[in-house]
């Protein structure tokens, strides 16, 4: 009887150990990737990048984004749900640099590591920040535009959402680069809220006042494409140069067709990829740098062939 009992205990213990070992050996991490929305192609590229990294590293990934684009509440909820489900790591692209802080702090409290991608979170503890420098990207584009204009002319600047950190950095970069060209005058600088339709309307109005402007520098491609339509409507395609940032699919087509001049590849795929990779590295006990900088590339007619699919 006792022998049987001992044998039973031993077998049970062995089974348990083996079971645990198999769990430990093939422990697949569960990572949640929270994006700003599923509308702008930028975030879809980032999702593809994140999912590619997950596949490569053999982890589970779930990508979430607010239904109402860029809604902070929904992002906070997504993170709270992830905490309840006890995921291993959270990778987040905050819509609102400040609004996201309480959610990050909650994750910190629950001991779940957070990786910050693309847009800086202004508080809470993130293991690393994977992003391009928006300031540098906008600077590069404006510098390239200045060169295309041979350092002289009048330009219109289209800004992003007033008050958003990315918009502030992009605007500062653009204007700092234009300062290098004393012959270039900024005749108007207005917001079009990163939106194509809004940019078209604002440009239609501005073209009434400045029909002979030399160039438009938009803080993203969506706005640049709105400007392209407004310029097309008055038959000045090619005469007024247009620049944006993101190198999204439409902008690539517009550059290839000569309707747009410059964009900037912010390598969203790479950002998603590196973000998820950083999360796995951290979970495996590796030390992360405070900042992972993703290099950007200026896109124009000289290298557009690499982007046309």
């Amino acid at each position, binding site marked *: 009887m006792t022998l049987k009992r001992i044998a039973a205990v031993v077998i049970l213990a062995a089974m348990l150990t083996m079971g645990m070992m198999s769990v430990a050996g093939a422990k697949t991490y569960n990572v949640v990737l929270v994006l700003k*929305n*599923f*509308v*702008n*192609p930028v*975030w*879809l590229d980032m999702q593809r990048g994140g999912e590619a990294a997950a596949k490569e590293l053999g982890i589970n990934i779930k990508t979430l984004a607010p*239904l*109402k*684009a860029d809604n902070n509440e929904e992002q906070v909820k997504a993170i709270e749900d992830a905490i309840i489900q006890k995921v291993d790591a959270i990778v987040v692209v905050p819509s609102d640099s400040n609004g996201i802080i309480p959610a990050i702090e909650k994750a910190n409290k629950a001991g779940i590591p957070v990786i910050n991608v693309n847009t800086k979170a202004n508080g809470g503890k993130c293991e690393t920040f994977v992003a391009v420098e928006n300031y540098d990207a906008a600077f590069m584009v404006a510098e390239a535009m200045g060169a295309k204009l041979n350092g002289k002319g009048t330009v219109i600047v289209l*800004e992003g959402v*007033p*008050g958003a950190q990315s918009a502030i950095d992009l605007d500062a970069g653009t204007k700092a680069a234009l300062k290098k060209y004393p012959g270039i005058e900024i005749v*108007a*600088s*207005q*917001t079009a809220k990163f939106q*194509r*339709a809004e940019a*078209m*309307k*604002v440009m*239609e*109005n*501005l073209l*009434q*006042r400045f029909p002979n402007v030399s160039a438009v520098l938009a803080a993203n491609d969506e706005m640049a*494409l*709105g400007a392209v*339509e407004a310029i097309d*409507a008055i038959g000045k395609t090619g005469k007024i140069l247009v620049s944006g940032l993101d190198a999204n*699919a*439409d902008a690539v*087509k517009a550059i290839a067709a000569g309707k747009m001049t410059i964009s900037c590849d912010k390598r969203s795929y790479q950002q998603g990829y590196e973000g998820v990779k950083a999360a796995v590295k951290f979970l495996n006990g590796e030390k992360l740098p405070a900042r992972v900088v993703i290099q950007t590339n200026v896109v124009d007619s000289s290298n557009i062939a690499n982007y046309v699919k």
Partner: protein
Amino acid sequence: MRLAAQILKYSRLLIIAALFVGLTLASPVFLTGSNLINVVRQTALLAVLGFAMTLVILVGGIDLSIGSVLALSSCLAASYLKEPSTIVIGTIICLGVASACGFLNGLMVAKIKLPPFIATYGMSWMTRGLALVFMGGNIVYGFPKTFRFLGAGYMLGVPTPIWVMTIAFTVLYVVLHMTKIGRNVYATGANKEAAFLSGVKTDRVVIGLYTMAGFLVGLGALMYISRLNAAEPGIGESFALEAIAATLIGGTPFTGGEGGISRTLTGAFILTLLSNGMNLLGVSSLWQSAVFGSVIIFAIMLERISKKLGND
């Protein structure tokens, strides 16, 4: 007092006159033919969506689904509109989907007796979600010339959207003010039970109005994507609020039974003049929405004061 009431009755025209004088003095470009045509062209879409909103507000309702239905109908139709040979099918899909959404709104409000705010709010989430699912994050870009005529073309030297707005306005105006249907609409809006007891099929009126509003949203969807040269599931998030603003600034109250589309046309025009003016003057981005908000409140305050004076 009576004089003051009379003046305030035309307060909106006074606002427009004031904006015209002010902007003409402030900007040399404002009072030019091309800028004025530009302003009217930009008014067209907001006016058509404002008409849709006004129709349902006339019977004490509201339609919060305008922007999302616009997104869904344009996304479902976009791939057909992209091919010159299937433009007609695309147009039918766009108008049909939007009308069907409007019809469903009407059914929920009239038959299931859901509060309009809730019925159309639900519809707005549903249609936005379906649009996101259908597009899977893609954007349809680059429509053929034949389709772009609607939003970006000209007819007899006048931009097509202005023609569309004028036709929509004329048809709605005639129906609302010169036919029995129109009388039934106003009767239903003023007092639904009294109208029902005197033989008006009020449910049909309500369902008809929501469906018509849907149709106008479909028309707006065609105008919008043809002008923008792209269709994406995220468009029009602010349209419902802008359409409400145009209706209210125009002077159609939420209570129903009074007001009309000619007022909404003025409301839409005021809003568009404002944004054109602020762009021309280079008003800082940060100030623009504050200015919009104060004008909305100011216009509605004038409305209230004129009513009070009129009653005294």
